């Protein structure tokens, strides 16, 4: 996936942006989708498809703990994606200057 595609997926919606801010500020957060939704002041319905997008991108990971599914930040993958985005942004800026 290219840097621009990653960027547009990450910032695809306001809720997704809220989720990214939450997990970046709190990289040790491990919670259910329901719990995550509560922490950003949204409903589970509003959040579930956005979490799915971030899972597909690999920023978030999922794990079963007993009867619950929890989501958490994949720190390594997140760093990798951020690097791709940063590289992409550098290219865009250089292009703009030209």
């Amino acid at each position, binding site marked *: 996936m290219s840097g621009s595609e990653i960027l547009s997926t990450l910032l695809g919606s306001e809720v997704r942006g809220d989720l990214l801010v939450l997990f970046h500020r709190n990289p040790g957060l*491990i*919670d*259910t989708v329901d*719990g995550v939704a509560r*922490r950003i002041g949204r409903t589970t319905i509003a959040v579930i498809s956005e979490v799915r997008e971030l899972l597909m991108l690999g920023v978030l990971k999922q794990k079963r703990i*007993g*009867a619950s599914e*929890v989501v958490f930040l994949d720190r390594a993958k997140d760093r990798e994606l951020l690097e791709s985005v940063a590289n992409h942004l550098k290219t865009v800026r250089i292009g703009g200057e030209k």
Partner: protein
Amino acid sequence: MTAARPKAGASGFDQLFSGKEGDGLRVKTGIIELDEMLRGGFMPGDAVMLAGSAGTGKTTLALQYLVNGVKQGEPGIYVTFEELPDQIYRDAKNFGWDLRKLEEEDKFRVVCTSPSLLLESGEDSLLDDVLRDIQPRRLVIDSLSHLEMFVKKDDMRMEAYRVVRYLKTRGVSSVLLWESPQISGGSFSVTDVGLSFLVDCIVALKPVEIESSLRKALVILKMRGSDHDKRFREFEITPTGIKIESAFSNYEGIISGSPRKVGSEKFMDLFRGASEKRK
């Protein structure tokens, strides 16, 4: 701790051959006066209850214990049910502790979750991954009191026991925070759900009113298998963390929260007052 020790998260089998038991080593808090009170530090692998009412400094003391552990080469984990990690990073930075940097170096983790998830039983435990990742020697749970919201009062002791055993089996020294507004009177009741018996050591923090100002007292109520300082010591939260001062030697009734001067000190006050009047 400087000698060879079991790897964090290591199995009980590994520990069996590590020489941990009875090797005389202590888990130093890094707060010199507290380590002196503990005769060197906590016992390795022990579960310590840090009890106190809100605002007494439980979180600060617990973070200081973990950060000092990292300085001694012992990675640590802070499990919080209450505050989001970003608040903890911010508050810790005010004391000069850069937790984000320690996380980047894989020496520290703040885990933020719900108590119900910690109690979920299954093949995987919530903490399995993080224990494997950073191999901690120390772990703090802030706070055990939150489990009460998710389990019946009668089950609380069993659930807390499970958490304590999970950590002990992995050779992790734990500090369990406990909101305890009732450390007063003559009963020394720290919890009303019988948790005092589950832990190896209890350190209580208590606000004390002396001469119309609020001061803070620390006392070690219990320490299995070791002698310890039995006195109430005054402490302050300074810009660099907890600083333990001298004992409240001229007061009695500290545990009640409203201490009074001991008889001899009252007599001395009267004597001093009378001699000043004569002048």
